[in-house]
């Protein structure tokens, strides 16, 4: 039997079955189709303007390593005119993050991009190891997630960039759509399929891999022989997200288009106007100046709980009341430095790419 030809170029021998479409294609066409879909995502959403300073949120894992590689490739191929940076957050997890940061440092050399590392310890005075030793493994992802978001924004502000891109892939987004529906989180449901989110004061954040399958990202890294760190976090993951992830993998096995179909579903609806009206408006945290939906932002509440030895305060309503009953925060409480977004010199007149 003659070798099967690539379904895209009809010339080379097909060597892989594309997880997203099931087509049998050659290696070169795989690179082309993967990169072109990301390019389409970027241009369709008009994510960047020439001259933009863009930070790539880099963890050393597969998603961000491939993202750095693809961003560099596309920036050169299509002349986006972007200035690219690597931005890493050191959560302080011994045996996990210290190793993965080594990978990021190698990426810095390989891709020739400036790297900034900001640590939880530096910003909040707490490492994740210290947090877990106080609160245990349950709920620690709440702390890590809230702290990382703010840390990324602060790191980006210090680099004077106007845009952060993260390696969130299609699987992550589909999983989040399902989770937000099952948990009734309307505010996040409205946001989670947006490719780019931007509050008034925050730095733009976007997900160029929004439609890229996790399996294809791994495949891309494999064929390009990219250097990435593949260990899962040593602290137990969010149990609820775990359920959603297993379900999504089952759906993908039943019909591979399910991931993209869920994202499509998420994009076709929006929160009703009358429901939006009941949602809290954004304000700034009175303690650290970061965006918040309450007087105190989530990070400040979590930090106060940690400092006062009542870490559950921001996690459960009952614990929060107990904390309030103990009186106001002491004067000498450790707080997060006040947040000020540096306004970088942007190419305001530039047309979107």
């Amino acid at each position, binding site marked *: 039997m003659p070798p099967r030809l690539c379904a*895209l*170029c009809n010339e080379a021998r097909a060597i892989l*079955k594309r997880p*997203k*479409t*099931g*087509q049998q294609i050659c290696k070169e*066409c795989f690179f*082309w*189709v993967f990169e*072109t*879909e990301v390019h*389409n*995502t970027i241009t*369709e959403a008009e994510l960047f303007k020439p001259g933009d300073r863009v930070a790539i949120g880099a963890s050393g894992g597969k998603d961000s390593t491939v993202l750095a590689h693809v961003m560099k490739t596309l920036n050169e191929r299509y002349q986006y005119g972007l200035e690219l940076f690597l931005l890493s957050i050191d959560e302080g997890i011994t045996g996990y993050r210290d190793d993965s940061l080594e990978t990021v440092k190698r990426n810095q050399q390989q891709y020739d991009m400036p790297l900034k590392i900001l640590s939880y310890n530096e910003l909040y005075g707490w490492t994740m190891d210290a947090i877990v030793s106080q609160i245990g493994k349950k709920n620690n992802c709440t702390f890590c997630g809230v702290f990382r978001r703010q840390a990324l924004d602060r790191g980006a502000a210090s680099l004077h960039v106007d845009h952060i891109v993260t390696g969130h892939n299609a699987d992550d987004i589909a999983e989040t*759509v*399902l989770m*937000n*529906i*099952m*948990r*009734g*989180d*309307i505010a996040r*449901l409205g946001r989670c399929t947006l490719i780019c989110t931007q509050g008034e004061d925050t730095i733009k954040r976007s997900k160029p891999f929004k*439609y890229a399958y996790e399996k294809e990202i791994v495949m891309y890294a494999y064929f390009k022989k990219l250097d990435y760190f593949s260990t899962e976090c040593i602290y137990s993951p969010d149990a*609820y997200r775990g*359920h959603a992830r297993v*379900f999504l993998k*089952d*759906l993908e*096995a*039943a*019909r*591979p*288009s*399910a991931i*993209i*179909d*869920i994202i*499509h*579903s*998420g*994009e*076709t*609806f*929006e*929160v*009703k106007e009358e*429901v939006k009206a009941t949602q809290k408006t954004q304000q700034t945290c009175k303690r650290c100046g970061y965006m918040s939906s309450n007087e105190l932002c989530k990070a400040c509440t979590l930090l106060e709980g940690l400092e006062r030895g009542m870490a559950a305060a921001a996690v459960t309503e009952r614990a929060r009341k107990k904390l309030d009953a103990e009186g106001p925060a002491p004067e000498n409480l450790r707080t997060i430095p006040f947040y000020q977004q540096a306004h970088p010199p942007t190419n305001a007149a530039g047309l979107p790419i």
Partner: protein
Amino acid sequence: MSCGNPTVEGESIMPRRKKYDKTRYCVRCKEAEGNIVIRHAVYCKDCFSPLITHKFRKGLEPSINRKPDLSRRTALKPDGNLLVGVSGGLGSTVLLDLLHRCYVSMDESTMPSDGGRQHPRHERVWKKVTVCYVEMCDAFPGMRDRTSDVERRVAQYAGLDFVPLRIQDAFDPEWCRKVHASRKESSFSVDMTTEELRLSAIASSSASTPLQALHGYMSSLPTATAVPTTVQTLVRLLLLHTAVQSGSSHLVLGTSLTSLAVSLISGISQGRGYNLKEEVQEEWVPDDSDEPCPPGSGSKQGGARARKPYVRVIRPLRDIGRKECALWAWWRGLNVVGKEQQPWSGAKQDIGILTREFITGLEKDYPSTVSAIVRTCSKVEPKGRAGGLCALCARPIQDGVQEWKSRISIRSRDGSQREPSPTSATLTPRLCYGCHTTLTSRSSRPAPSLGLPSSDRSTVPLPLWVGSGVPRSRLSEQQMKDAVSEFLLEGDTS
């Protein structure tokens, strides 16, 4: 069962979790000991009944009058008759029972106590109530025909008409003639091996029997998920057309809160996010003016100016969970025919079944999941403009879905190849995202084997309602051109 080791028995066994939060007494009457826990609240048997009839009425009555009426101050005057879709499952058994008690036998215990015997609410709301059952055993070899079982159950209730259908009626010109009155027949077949889904007209000489057409269609479906989804769509459309034929303005279905949550998540997972609203409640207007009018609507408005017929699909059990349905059936001594397990091998690869297993599993640890899903979905609305109705499922299509698909998943290096050729008609532009995915999305596993006699043709016949729009739109273009032809300058053929 005892393991026989005395040291681990007694105190060392983990304490059993309490089934209720605060009190074991009924939250309504506060006197009787409770018999059922509905998400944290305890109810006794006597208070359970009015609770369920109240939820049932609340789920149905605000949608009976043409204009939705939430305060329910006006009398209930539907525009036509009522069609009840039953499957023989738990939900539709409970639905039929509640419906008969509240609106046919007019059981007084189901009505609010105020107003007296002469109150208008003691008049029958629907003049004619028809029950329709669609038998699907012919799509799955080895499945038992349960039409007579269902018919017997329905016959236990006086005053209901029974209409049995078979799933292959969707391909039967006889049935089509019956429900479509004077509509011209046009049947099409589709080539499911390509993304474009090319259409060709079927010559009446080569037409197959409805059963052969059904088998051809079912065995061409590419995935295990597509099979039950297609069955559901066929059943839904058969019911809608039967509703119009029976002069019904309302079609009620026995979807419980639990089944609704499953169908919402399963729909989202199949790309049907744009139609979440229709999954809860929808209003269908047949696209043909030659459909028979519901008797209730025409006569009152005066013959020629009769209102266009419509069918409102309502799920009055949407606030009642599966557990409550089961208890209602148990206490009322209802006999549930039950649904046949689909005997074919691909069931574990079906997104619908995977979703049901996932949600019922999650509900055990997180008991509010089902209601959270339904509540969340009721807070969203479709985004953007609708571009007509889907030829297969008759639900709104979002504009630009095909462009979206081709941008997100590139399937060809040459963009022009994707342009459908103008000479041959294709089904793709007339389908919603979900139906297009059902017919074209493949899995790495081979297509499901239903054990049906395979068709030797490359194209398979479509359900007959799909035919209506295809030649008409092309014909009308020609008609439009004819109408303006005298104004066109010579040589202008564009």
